[in-house]
Every structure is written in structure tokens, then in C-alpha cells.
């Protein structure tokens, strides 16, 4: 493990990569050797090791939760939630965020070098699942010397990981927060992901997934995948409010240029995405999400997945305009948590920003999360 501390920051921050020599067993039956997990930390672990929080990131995000992203130069994706005075305050908590297994920001994924061949894995990388990602996170947490996390928190795919933590490691979490997520992928969820994957694989530069070795990149396909997915993160009213039918220039071009502002916006979303994300990682991670069906391993009874939770405080959040993982998905989670006896709280935040609302300015979310974590911290004895 190499851990570099930044002494000039207001709070102690660290980043590192851990490598696990013992093979990681995967749900597919395959196993991965020499798995590496890249992570960042904020704040300091207290002497009793009771203040650690694990943040689980969404599909295309990464461990740079509240630090400048080295690839994009932009602020961390949740710097409005993680920082001094914010709901996740590094003065109080030791905050960990790691890049998921299968990712492309330092953790082992399809773009990593296969130690057996010396070449990038490409499509020889095994198909991974949300439980596999969580297993790797649990190994990281263990390596950091933490037996029990104060909280496991995540939105979207991160929320799925929180639910998986609750099923697989209930004794290692004091509380959980699941935002804008679902207990399984719906047909519509899978359908949109399939559009994205087909766009990538239809790009000749994808080369059967072997592009890294060949020195090419399926940028067009990945950009289209992102464009399609991005629409699902917004809402009809938000798109209308932001763009309406506004044109880029005066008048129509009578061609297939980006006449409408919404076209230009989507194209920008697509092209900027390919600079920071790997096409094969996109295939693997979307597959993991599509395979996610937490109840399936418990005879289709979601409450059984949560039977280890006892009276664990749990907070579930949905957004009114999120049509990717709509409120009924969150209510299903809450009902199962209640049936399992967990202390399930739930709020549906009024917002027209769609699924992405969990990353945006939503004061109700901030206040509720602040309240939930603050009171859970008190009952954990955290100052």
C-alpha cells in the first residue's frame, strides 16, 4: 500500500492503491489475481476506529469524491456533501472512497495489464458483479484496519453497493444510506444499458475489445453510449427548462449539424466523457448493474437479504422526477428493510432534476442526510 498524505490541505487527505496478493473470487466462478484498488481518504481514523465512512460511487464516477479530479481538473463529484461543515465532515469522519473493481481510475479493470500475459485484459477480463465490487471494498476496508464502518453511503450504483453491503456484511456497518437506487435493474434499465453497449461495440475502433493493444479508442461509440445514458439521468421538465427548442445559431442549418442547444449539449457530454472513461470499463460496469438483483439470491424475497441488519439505522432517499430508479423502487427497499426489522427512514425529495439530483444542489437531501448522520454519530459515540 502506498499512501501519500497532503499536509497542506485543510483536512488530512490521503490516496493510495492497495494490492491483494490472494486471488479475488468472483461470482462468475472466475478469480482475479493481484487485484488493485485505488482509493482516497479524507479526515483521520479515530483511536477507536469507529468513525470510518465508505462512500460508494456511481457508474462513471470515481474515488475523487471531494478532491480535484486529476483527469478532468474539475472538483470532486460530491464536494458539496464532503467537506468541513458539510454532512460528511472530515473533521468528524474518516471518509473512504475507492474506485470500483472493473473501473478505469486506478482499480483493476479491463484496461489493466493482465499479469499472466503482460497485455491489457480487454474482453479476457471476467464479468464482474455488484457483489464482487463490494467484496473488493470490504477487503480494502479490512486492509485499512477497520472492522466496522460507521456508515456506507452511495447513490445510484453506489446505492446498490450499499444494499449489497447490508446483505453481505451487515455486522460491519453501523448505518447505511441508499440514494436514488433500486434493488434490481428493471427491463428499461437493462434496455438503456444495452443501447450503450451496442453503440460501443458497433464502433470499428472497438476492435472486439482489443483496442488498447491496437492503440485505438472507440470514442464515437462510447460518446453515443454516454449521450443515451445522460438523457436517462435528467428529466423531461429539466431538459425543457434548460434548452427548450433553443437553437445554437440564428435559424436552422438545413443539415445534420447540432442545430438545437440540446444536441450540442449532448454531444459535449459524449465527447468530454471519452476523455475520462474507458469503453470496456463501461461495458463491464453496466453489465454488473444489469446483473444486479439483490433478492434473487434469497429466493426472490428482498427482506431476507436484510435479515442480518437487526436494528441498523438505514436511510433511503428517492427523487420525484427520477425515472431511472423511481420512488417505488426505493419504497420496495424500505418495505423490505422494515420487514427485516431495520430502522428504515425514507424521504422522497421533490425535485425536477431527474436521477442526477443526488449530485446536485438539493437542500432537502443535505438537511435530511445531515440529520440522519448526525444523530447516528451521536448514538455511535462520535463527537
Amino acid at each position, binding site marked *: 500500500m502506498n499512501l501519500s498524505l497532503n499536509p497542506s490541505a485543510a483536512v488530512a487527505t490521503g490516496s493510495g492503491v492497495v494490492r491483494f496478493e490472494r486471488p479475488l473470487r468472483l461470482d462468475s466462478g472466475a478469480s482475479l489475481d493481484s487485484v488493485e484498488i485505488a482509493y482516497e481518504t479524507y479526515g483521520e481514523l479515530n483511536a477507536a476506529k469507529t468513525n470510518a465512512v465508505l462512500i460508494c460511487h456511481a457508474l462513471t464516477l470515481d474515488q475523487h469524491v471531494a478532491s480535484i479530479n486529476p483527469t478532468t481538473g474539475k472538483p470532486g463529484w460530491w464536494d458539496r456533501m464532503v467537506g468541513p461543515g458539510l454532512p460528511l465532515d472530515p473533521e468528524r469522519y474518516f471518509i473512504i472512497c475507492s474506485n470500483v473493481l472493473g473501473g478505469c481510475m486506478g482499480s483493476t479493470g479491463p484496461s489493466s495489464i493482465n499479469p499472466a500475459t503482460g497485455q491489457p485484459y480487454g474482453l479476457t477480463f471476467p464479468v464482474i458483479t455488484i457483489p464482487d465490487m463490494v467484496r473488493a471494498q470490504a477487503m480494502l476496508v479490512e486492509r485499512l484496519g477497520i472492522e466496522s464502518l460507521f456508515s456506507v453511503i452511495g447513490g445510484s450504483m453506489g446505492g446498490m453497493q450499499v444494499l449489497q453491503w447490508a446483505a453481505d456484511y451487515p455486522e460491519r456497518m453501523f448505518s447505511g444510506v441508499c440514494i436514488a437506487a433500486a434493488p434490481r435493474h428493471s427491463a428499461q434499465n437493462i434496455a438503456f444499458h444495452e443501447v450503450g453497449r451496442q453503440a460501443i461495440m458497433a464502433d470499428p475502433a472497438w476492435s472486439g475489445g482489443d483496442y488498447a493493444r491496437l492503440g485505438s479508442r472507440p470514442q464515437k461509440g462510447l460518446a453515443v453510449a454516454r449521450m443515451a445514458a445522460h438523457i436517462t439521468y435528467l428529466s423531461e421538465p429539466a431538459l425543457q427548462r434548460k434548452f427548450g427548442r433553443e437553437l445554437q445559431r440564428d435559424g436552422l442549418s438545413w443539415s445534420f449539424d447540432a442545430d438545437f442547444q440540446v444536441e450540442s449539449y449532448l454531444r459535449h457530454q459524449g465527447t468530454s466523457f471519452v476523455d475520462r472513461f474507458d469503453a470496456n470499463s463501461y461495458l463491464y460496469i453496466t453489465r454488473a448493474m444489469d446483473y444486479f438483483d439483490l433478492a434473487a439470491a434469497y429466493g426472490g*424475497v428482498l427482506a431476507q437479504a436484510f435479515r442480518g441488519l437487526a436494528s441498523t439505522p438505514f436511510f433511503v432517499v428517492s427523487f420525484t422526477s427520477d425515472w431511472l430508479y423511481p420512488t417505488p423502487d426505493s419504497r420496495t427497499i424500505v*418495505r423490505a428493510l422494515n420487514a427485516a426489522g431495520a430502522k428504515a427512514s*425514507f424521504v422522497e425529495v421533490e425535485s425536477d432534476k431527474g436521477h442526477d439530483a443526488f449530485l446536485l444542489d438539493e437542500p*432537502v437531501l443535505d438537511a435530511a442526510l*445531515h440529520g*440522519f448522520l448526525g444523530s447516528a454519530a451521536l448514538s455511535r459515540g462520535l463527537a
Partner: protein
Amino acid sequence: MSATGREDFREILRLVRPGARVLDVGCGEGALLELLEREKGVDGRGIEISAAGVSACLARGLTVMQGDADRDLAEFPAQAFDYAILSQTLQAVREPRTVLANLLRLAERAIVSFPNFGHWRVRMALLTRGRMPETAVLSEPWWSTPNIHLCTLRDFTALCDDLDLKIESASALSAGRPARQIDPAGALENWRAESALFLLSRRHGAPAAKAGGQADLFG
């Protein structure tokens, strides 16, 4: 209004057994739940319709889910609680009969309070002015009131009979005065009680009603 300032809170506090599992339906900012946890050591849950109310409850360390009595009582498995509390809310729900039946599906006992539309002030207002009454308890005009299903004490006891519910105890509540135990069947009480609070159970052991298709949460 201080946490103990509501007469029905004091009466509920008296009725609830220490350490019980309690569901407060329409828990607002959690004043009653907090009181019950502090004074009676209950294992409490709440349902609240507003996100702001839920936030306030979370900050108090309470376990509360956003929802309403009409739709979301099915979120809990049958017999999950010792008490389900519905304080001054029954008259504002869309389906009081279903809600009442649901309370006694979720819990061994229900504690229900509501304004008595049979109170003499209400009757007088209607009789003398010919207008919908506006009293201390029913403070809003008819066109903005959330109270869409007002009933009298006698109406309520008839519904309890109909649902095969047993009235374990009843008390009359008036602002600023301690609760007074009453016989809800007494003709005079339907005039005197401004508000009433009931402790109910099922007359026969089995749940009084099941919400269609929603009772089996493990299925």
C-alpha cells in the same frame, strides 16, 4: 407548543407501555415520538407526509419514513407494533375506515384521537349561524380545511363496532385541561367532549382487516 403541551400527548404517554414498539402515523416533526422514546423507552417509528417533517425527525434521531396514512401503512408487516398512534389525523385521511383497520393490522392496539363534531360549540355554530363551524379545534374555513371526514363520538364508536374493534378506554380532551376518562356511549359526552382519544384493540384475536395483497411482506 411545547412537547408536553398537547393534552393528547400526555394521555398517550400515560397509555403506552414502557419499551413498547410504537408507530406514530402523521408524526410531524417528531415531538410525540421523541417524548415516548425519552419517557417510555419505546422502539419508535414514524410516518410523516412532508419531507421537512421527516428531516426534522431525522435530526432528532428518530426513524421516520415519508408517506401518508392512506397509502403507506402497507410498508410495515402485520403485527409489527404494539401500538399504532393516529393523533388528530383520522378526520384528514381519504379512507378513515381502511386506515383504522390498517392500524389494527399493524399493531396490537391503536390510539386514535380526533375532534368531536358532536361538541356543543359545533352544533351551536351550525344551528345558530347556519355556517360550517370554526372552533379552536376546527380552525379553518370549510374550503381550506384538511378535515374532510369529520365525525362525532357516536359515529366513531359505531365504526369501531362495525370493524369489530374493542374500545379499551376513552377520554375527552379539552385545551388546557387534563384528559378526562369517559364512557363514549354516554349521550352527554357526545356534547361535552371537544376532542376524544380512544385506545382500541381487536375484539377477536385475528387482524380486523388486511390491506388487499399487501399483508404478506415476505412473499
